[in-house]
């Protein structure tokens, strides 16, 4: 379980995040939504341990992450940022192997190779192994990065729970891979993983998300199960957009229609 208590983060005098307390449970797919500049990425960076100079505390399984070493954290916490680039050419399998770096010293062990193969198999990337990462399309790069991130926490850690953070993971994916991506992520969440993703597409968020978190100007405005919290007024307040909500005839989930 991830607990955040009274998170306050300022840059200069500007409040980026304002007194946020919340919790994320393993096994659930948590979706963060909000307008541009509402603090979503900062939110993720604080929970994943990248930003340290905030006030308040973030606890993984009741242990404060500020007191944990980066090396240790990297064994059971993985993060996929927005569009990471590579400065020199590397093969796809070399990039995926980077996800195993926290787990070995100098040379990868047999287990590390097996895990990389499994991940690439699951992501349908096996035929890409020998490709130069820099020659891939934006969407392909994103899938390789996801494979790298999954490889990092593929095994269940001794601590029992894994933590996975995704920052707008779908930006360059086509509709087919968006669905595939979210399915794999949800599968992963079911296996003792705390999963938090920043999303833009409300309908995908309601389709896959167990809980939605709405941020506006650094404040957590609403959170809960999609069916319980999603309504016209909330979207108007958060995004300033007029919508209508109907029921998805197939899944029964709320479906947002822009009017």
């Amino acid at each position, binding site marked *: 379980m991830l607990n955040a208590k009274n998170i306050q983060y300022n840059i200069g005098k500007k409040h980026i995040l304002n007194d946020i307390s919340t919790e994320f449970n393993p096994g659930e797919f948590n979706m963060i939504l909000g307008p541009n500049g509402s603090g979503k990425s900062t939110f993720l960076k604080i929970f994943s341990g990248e930003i340290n100079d905030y006030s308040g505390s973030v606890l993984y399984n009741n242990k404060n992450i500020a007191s944990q070493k980066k090396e240790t954290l990297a064994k059971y916490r993985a993060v996929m940022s927005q569009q*990471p680039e590579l400065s020199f050419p590397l093969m796809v399998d*070399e990039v995926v192997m980077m996800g195993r*770096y926290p787990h070995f010293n100098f040379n990868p062990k047999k287990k590390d190779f097996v895990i990389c193969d499994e991940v690439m198999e699951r992501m349908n990337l096996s035929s890409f192994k020998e490709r130069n990462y*820099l020659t*891939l399309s934006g969407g392909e790069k994103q899938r390789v990065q996801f494979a790298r991130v999954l490889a990092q926490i593929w095994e269940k850690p001794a601590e029992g729970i894994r933590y996975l953070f995704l920052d707008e993971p779908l930006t360059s994916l086509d509709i087919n891979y968006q669905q595939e991506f979210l399915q794999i992520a949800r599968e992963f969440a079911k296996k003792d993983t705390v999963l938090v993703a920043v999303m833009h597409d409300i309908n995908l968020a309601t389709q896959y998300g167990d809980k939605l978190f709405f941020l506006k100007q650094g404040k957590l405005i609403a959170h809960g199960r999609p069916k319980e919290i999603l309504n016209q007024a909330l979207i108007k307040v958060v995004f300033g957009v007029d919508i209508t909500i109907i029921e998805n005839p197939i899944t029964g989930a709320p479906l947002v229609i822009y009017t």
Partner: protein
Amino acid sequence: MVCAIAFGAVEILPSDMFSAIQHFFQGKDPANIYEGVFIQIRLPRVLLCAITGAILSVSGVLMQGLFRNPIVEPGLVGTSSGAALGASIVFVMAAKFSPEFKSFTGPFLVPLMAFFGALAATYVVYSLAKNAKRVSIMSLLLIGIAVNAVCLSGTGFMSYIARDPQARSITFWNLGTLSGASWLQVFIVGTVATIIFILSLRYSKQLNALLLGEEEATYLGVNPDKLKRRIMLLNTAMVSVATAFVGVISFMGLIVPHVLRLLIGSDNKRLLPASMILGATLLTLADMCARLILAPAEVPIGIITSLVGAPIFIILLKKFNLLQQKGGYNA
């Protein structure tokens, strides 16, 4: 290597080399002048050359990896130009130094001053680039360029006020020279190089992770600030030592990592040892050319490395543009 030892102003036969080594280990004096040249002059020179080549290339890999930028070369953070300034001060002002100081340093006056010049310039760059505990790569690069310019103008001023032979010494030093190689130098540079090569291999994984960017590297358990400090330290130490003895040799550190990235990819675990070997080989070849072209006179080795290195570099760039069109090697 054997070729490089054999050819030169005095040619040495392999049989002489062999017997010279035999005599050397038996504690006897060299039997003839060829053996003497081999043991006292040629062998240390070729070894110093190979080690220097390895240092410059490994340093190129480290710096390019750290800056995540393919146009970086070891001298960019002020190390070479600081050394040049230090050396030129000695050439011009040596007469004004106190005799005690000179007798204390002996023949190491130039290397010592060059070494401290290199350290000082790099330290200035690093501490100016430091901004509230963090060192951003961009400011390191920009301040490096500025400090290089200052050192360069200092060296320029020194050659301006220098008398003719002094000015020639500065020019010659700035182009690199291996002619003064001795066993002591080989020992010093070799020891430093060995230690630092082993240490830098340990950082190959972290440097790979840094290719993804600092944030991603952090998520993989790397502390980028610590890594930057360590790599800067290793790099400065070995480049200052090498430069102090052989002067400024340009282009090696830029070109070797590039050639190898095209050949074997960018994994630093392979790149570091490979650049060691290729760097040593190329600089030994360059030194052989330097000795042979105008034999018995010598061409400064820096002229060879730049003259041959630059066109090769341009050819590679052209090729790499082609790759870029296919979406390949962009940086």
